[in-house]
């Protein structure tokens, strides 16, 4: 069992230009846990997970203060290799994003570009990842078909297969189910539980029931501050903070 995949955040501040999106956030995500991030729109939860794989670099004039360590290594040093960091920290997005390629190539692409050409290895990995993402039985007879022809839920599972194909330690999920129907959502949630033994998962969600169902720990953010971060069972049954209680009981947000 893979014991890597720990995220430590220490006194993190994040700015879009002059706007401070995250304020002094500190938290630790333990390996092989599912952590849910909840909070009202604009609270900084998506920003936070985009800091874990440095996707926030893509936006000009942003600034990071504080430390983010993945497996004890600071990911915001000058000599951090962003490309290999992102291979270690995979991501699944709100809108499913299959590449305009065949189903097979979507999964194999990440491997092909790091120079793995052996067809046997590629075939095995594609099958393994599609099985892990519970898509294999539905697509095994037409792997050459365009990934864009799959349904929304299938596309999202394909994106998960694609993410795990490059053997990451952490998978970030940015509202992965918000465009899916309840049945497809349930399948993704089952999948997350199954993936936990190999990967650390951080999921941003607007759906509090989902957070309660899938996660080991839940973090609640508001106005860029981490209000509460606790075991999910305690978080929802016995919140220690008044604001958390107001939020989860629907008094605002």
């Amino acid at each position, binding site marked *: 069992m893979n014991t890597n995949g720990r995220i430590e955040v220490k006194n993190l501040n994040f700015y879009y230009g002059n706007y401070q999106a995250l304020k002094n956030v500190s938290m630790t995500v333990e390996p092989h846990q599912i952590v849910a991030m909840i909070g009202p729109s604009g609270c900084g939860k998506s920003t936070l997970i985009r800091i874990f794989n440095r996707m926030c670099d893509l936006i000009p004039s942003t600034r990071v203060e504080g430390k983010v360590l993945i497996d004890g290594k600071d990911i915001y040093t000058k000599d951090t290799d962003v490309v290999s960091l992102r*291979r270690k920290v995979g991501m699944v*997005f709100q809108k499913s*994003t299959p590449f305009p390629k065949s189903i097979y190539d979507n999964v194999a692409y*990440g491997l092909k570009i790091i120079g793995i050409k052996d067809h046997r290895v590629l075939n095995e990995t594609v099958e393994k990842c599609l099985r892990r993402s519970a898509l294999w039985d539905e697509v095994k007879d037409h792997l050459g078909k*365009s990934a*864009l*022809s799959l349904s929304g839920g299938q596309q999202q599972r394909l994106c998960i297969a694609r993410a795990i194909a490059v053997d990451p330690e952490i998978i970030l999920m940015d509202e992965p189910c918000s465009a899916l129907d309840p049945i497809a959502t349930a399948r993704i949630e089952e999948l997350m539980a199954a993936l936990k033994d190999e990967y650390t998962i951080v999921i941003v969600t607007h759906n509090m029931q989902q957070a309660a169902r899938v996660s080991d720990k839940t973090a609640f953010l508001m106005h860029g501050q981490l209000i509460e971060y606790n075991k999910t069972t305690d978080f929802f049954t016995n919140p220690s903070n008044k604001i958390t209680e107001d939020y989860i009981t629907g008094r605002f947000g």
Partner: protein
Amino acid sequence: MKDLVLKSFDATRLRREIWDKVMVVVLFLCAACVLFILFIILWHLIARGLSSLNPAFFTHLPKAVGESGGGMANAIIGTFVLLLLAVGVGVPLGLGAGVYLSEYAHQRFAQTVRFMTDVLNGVPSIVFGIFSYTVCVLPMKSFSAVSGGFALGLMMIPMITRTSEQFVKMVPHQLREAGLALGLPKWRVITGIILPSAIGGIMTGIMVALARVAGETAPLLFTAFGNLHYTQSLMQPIAAIPLQIFNYAVSPYSDWHRQAWAGALVLIVIVFIINIWAQYFVYSRKRWSAGK
């Protein structure tokens, strides 16, 4: 006040309805005119050119004045060679510039280049010919296929740059993020994901540019120059259908006039085929994407 508005509405009702009908008719006539012009051109070409079209037209070289028969085999091949050369110049440069503008360039620089491509697009085609004459023909001391292809290729650049920039920009942002999040270097995201997503639009842009330069005569006058025989080397003058049409059309011989009409017809059919092929390419990709 309310009454007044209602009343004047009623009073102008007839006038409104008549104008409405008139405008529809006027607009329809405009559309019909466009079609009509196209048909007139086609009809003329077919009526005057079809009779001179025979197998010999596609397989034989031009005959000297007074001898009947002969064809444009050399010019047809020449046009394809020139177009191929033009694609070799125009597509890499235009596509590269378009991708750079969309994916890398700073706003100010991008805007300057965009403005310049618009200017370049408006430059008369003969100027491209003169330019190519200066930088290719003079140093090489010979008219050549290369210089003609170069002139046509330059003409294609602004068109291809603009269309590829547009279509590359239209690729959803999430797709780029997904590629980067998978640990792909940016250039891989561009070549492996963005370009394949935008290929339909890019191809259409290339075809439009190709169709436009296929009929250009002016840039070829003192570059490709024309040739009454097959060209053995790209460094030699080469025949092209538009050049041949021009030469025949300004001649006093009715036999040559007929050949010119036939040449024009062939040229249009070639452009037509290129376009249909491109449409089919785009269409079949779309079908594949949709899972059919």
